[in-house]
Every structure is written in structure tokens, then in C-alpha cells.
């Protein structure tokens, strides 16, 4: 494993996941979340949010490197879409057991797939072990 490329890919994935999460879930979906205030904290617990994104980005980067050791943007996007679908599944389960709205469910699923597809593409584009 090319450690320098790996850590560059991890940092890029972390920054992207965090910024996308802030824009998509924290800004675009804010109104939808406010429709069910009992299900959300009034203010996010930022240390857990930050740590969660670090863990998610780190292990997602390891997964991408394992699945596509040669890297590549297209291959990264494909892995990202599949991982996004793995994490979209629990959103459907949450919808069945929590009083979430359909708008929230759709936003979370679309968000997960887009978020991981782009993060996977970034990792694939950066992690190319044979090129320096």
C-alpha cells in the first residue's frame, strides 16, 4: 500500500464527507428535519459528529483500496454507489420503526448514494499506487 496516497485519499474523503454532510443533511434537509423535532437534538453533538466522520472516512478509504487496488475514478464511483446502497438499507429500516417523513427517507437515501459515490470517486482518483 502507498501510505502517502492512502492518507491523501483519506483526508480528501473526510473533508468531502463532512462538507457534503453539512450541506445536504444540515442545510438542504434542515426544513425536513424540523418537521419532526422530537427525533432530533436541538444542536448537534459536534465531537461525536467529527469522530464519526473520521471513522467513516478512514474505513471507507481502506475498503476502496482493498476493492480497487489499482484505483480509478470510475471504479471508485462504482464501489461508492454500492457502499451507499449498503447504508441506504438501514435508512429504510429506520423509516419503518421511527416516525420519519417520506421526504426525510428519500433525502437520506439519495444523500447516502451521492455522498459515497463522490467520495469513492475521489479516493479512486487519488489512490493510484503505481503512479508515484
Amino acid at each position: 500500500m502507498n501510505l502517502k496516497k492512502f492518507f491523501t485519499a483519506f483526508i480528501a474523503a473526510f473533508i468531502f464527507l463532512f462538507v457534503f454532510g453539512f450541506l445536504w443533511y444540515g442545510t438542504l434537509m434542515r426544513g425536513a428535519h424540523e418537521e419532526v423535532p422530537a427525533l432530533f437534538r436541538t444542536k448537534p453533538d459536534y465531537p461525536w459528529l467529527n469522530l464519526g466522520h473520521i471513522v467513516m472516512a478512514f474505513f471507507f478509504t481502506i475498503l476502496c483500496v482493498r476493492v480497487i487496488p489499482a484505483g480509478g475514478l470510475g471504479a471508485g464511483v462504482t464501489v461508492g454507489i454500492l457502499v451507499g446502497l449498503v447504508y441506504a438499507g438501514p435508512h429504510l429500516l429506520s423509516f419503518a420503526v421511527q416516525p420519519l417523513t417520506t421526504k426525510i427517507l428519500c433525502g437520506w437515501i439519495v444523500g447516502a448514494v451521492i455522498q459515497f459515490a463522490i467520495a469513492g470517486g475521489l479516493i479512486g482518483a487519488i489512490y493510484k499506487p503505481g503512479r508515484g
Partner: protein
Amino acid sequence: MKKFILAFVAAYIFLFLWGWLLNGVLLKDVYAETPNLWRSQSEMMSLFHWIIIGQALIVFAFVMIYASGFVGGGVMAGIRLGVLLEIAAIGMRMGFYAVQPFPGKLIVYGSVSGLIEMIILGAIVGAIYKPASARKP
């Protein structure tokens, strides 16, 4: 294709039974501590098809990822994939804990059981889904 379908069906049956045992039986009292966060029993039953679809989606995407980069590695490769996906999911769960008022112990129980779940799921997929050459004596 046959092995893919077989791995999918076996993993799905496990996930369904595990989900029922864990969430419907073992953690029932923990969920009962925060009734305002959950739908009523009758509402959940009316939306049960989403649980079936959601679990099918998890298993389908899992087997697809296994087939993309882990196939041929057997049980250990399946377990590795399960562990990687679940630890990343624990990160996501931390994110949910940051924005939703779940009790901390529910996150801990969910993460530990999620890890066990994905290890077993990976082992099942890895044991069943093997390339043609790996099955020859």
C-alpha cells in the same frame, strides 16, 4: 449467478432472523425507554415491507461488493469485508448519535451487535460465493 443468488438468500435469511432476535426480543426493553422516538407497534407492522426491502438492499449490495473485490478469499475475505463495512457504519452511527437523541447504550449495543452481524454475514457470503476455479478439487 447461482452462487450469487444462493449467497444472497442465505445471508438474507440470517439477517432477517438476527434482526428479529436482536431488535424484536433482546433490545425490546431498551427501545421501550424512549417511546417518543419510535412508531407504534401497529404502525411498524404496516410498514414491515420496508424492513424486508431494506434488509434485501443491504445483503444485495454486500454480495455485490464481495463479488467485486473479495471473491476467492473465502470466509476470511467475507469477514474482512463485513468488519470494514461495519466499522465505517459505526462512524455513521456516531453521526446519528450526534444529531438524534438516542440513548448512548443503544448506540453501543447496536454497534457491538452490528459487528457480530456483519462478521457472520461476511462468513456466510464468503463460504458460499466462490469462483468456479476455487470449487474444483
